[in-house]
Each structure stands twice: as C-alpha cells, then as structure tokens.
C-alpha cells in the first residue's frame, strides 16, 4: 500500500469553527489531491497540488483552502465550517503528471459538522 496517512480519521466540530485536515505521504510523489465523498455524488475534487506551493482548484473548491509547504504534506482547511461540509474526505497522491498514472488514496477522514 502507498504510504499515505490522513489525520485525524474522525472529527466532530461545530458550525463556524476552523478545521484543518492533514495528508502525509512517504512516497515522494509530486501530485496530491483532496476529494470529498458524499452519497449520490461519488468523489469530487476539491483542490490539488502539483508541487510545493503549487496548488489549483477542483470542482468543489468554495469554502476550502489548501497549503503545501513540503512535498510530503498537503493540508486542507475549512476556514469556517458549515453543515454542508459534513463528508468523508480523501487525500490521494500520484507520481506523474500523466493522468494515466494511478492515484493512490488514503483511508479518509470522516468529518461531521453540527
């Protein structure tokens, strides 16, 4: 299995609070991604990174920000959490710019916003 660690694995918080999720990889892969998974919607890309300090928006980026100060760490921040951001969040990594290279996923963070 690819070395991807997501933390925390579970979190419950209140509306309006800031939340930061962490993705740590030991594979030295250049590309890192944040997805959210919701019933009926599958996997939707939030933000992705193609290198240290290089990030771009995905399909559902509103309300989220990311940072990547080191190759191995990719942080997802909800500045002011809302109930609509209750979801399971997955981090993924890939080795190459080619989309034909598989993405390897972490085991997810289950986030509940009350």
């Amino acid at each position, binding site marked *: 299995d690819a070395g991807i660690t997501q933390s925390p694995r579970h979190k419950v918080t209140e509306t309006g609070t800031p939340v930061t999720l962490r993705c740590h990889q030991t594979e030295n892969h250049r590309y890192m991604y944040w997805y959210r998974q919701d019933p009926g919607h*599958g996997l939707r890309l939030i933000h992705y990174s193609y290198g240290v300090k290089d990030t771009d928006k995905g399909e559902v980026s509103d309300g989220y920000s990311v940072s990547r100060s080191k190759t191995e760490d990719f942080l997802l921040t909800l500045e002011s959490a809302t109930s609509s951001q209750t979801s399971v969040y*997955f981090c993924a990594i890939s080795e190459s*710019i080619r989309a034909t290279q598989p993405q390897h996923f972490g085991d997810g963070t289950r986030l509940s916003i009350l």
Partner: protein
Amino acid sequence: QQQVKQSPQSLIVQKGGISIINCAYENTAFDYFPWYQQFPGKGPALLIAIRPDVSEKKEGRFTISFNKSAKQFSLHIMDSQPGDSATYFCAASMGGGDDKIIFGKGTRLHILP
C-alpha cells in the same frame, strides 16, 4: 461534457454470478478509463484500467469492455464472490497534461453468499 454516468447505483448478485456495471461519457477527449474498488472504511484503490485503443482488457475475474463508438465502457466481474462486495467507481481522464480524473457516482455491489 465532463460527466461520467454510472449505473446501476446498487447491485445484488448471487455468488458465482456475473456482476456488470456500466458507464457512459460524452467527452471524446477522454483517453484513459480506470475502475476503482472501495471497501468500507477504506479509500478507493485502482482495480483495472483501459485505453480506448483496445476493446477489452481482462485481469483475472475482472474484465473491462470498451465501446468507443457508443462512448460506453463496462466492468464485468465473473464468478462473483462475497469478497467482491464493495463500491465500484468508473472514471475517465484526459492526457495532455491534464492530471484530473472524473469519477462516476459509484455502484454499491453486494454478493450474496
């Protein structure tokens, strides 16, 4: 045009039967079609993938059939086993430096013992 439509949403198959999941796309620029398998509490994992220059790819009990003219592709699981019970996602992506993958909404497969 960026969507990948997947059906059915859920599927129940008897042990030993054939499970079939279908996907359709619109964007003819897609040139890579992976399938991911996800078990409860885990992240998705690449199962099998196909390029549009072939009509079929087989890996063990898993086969992708690809129909370029119809813009459809499907996953067949032969001799389905209870251990195959999982959620399956089809996906599509484009080459040329675009490193994003578009996922279908998933099919929850349950194999009856």
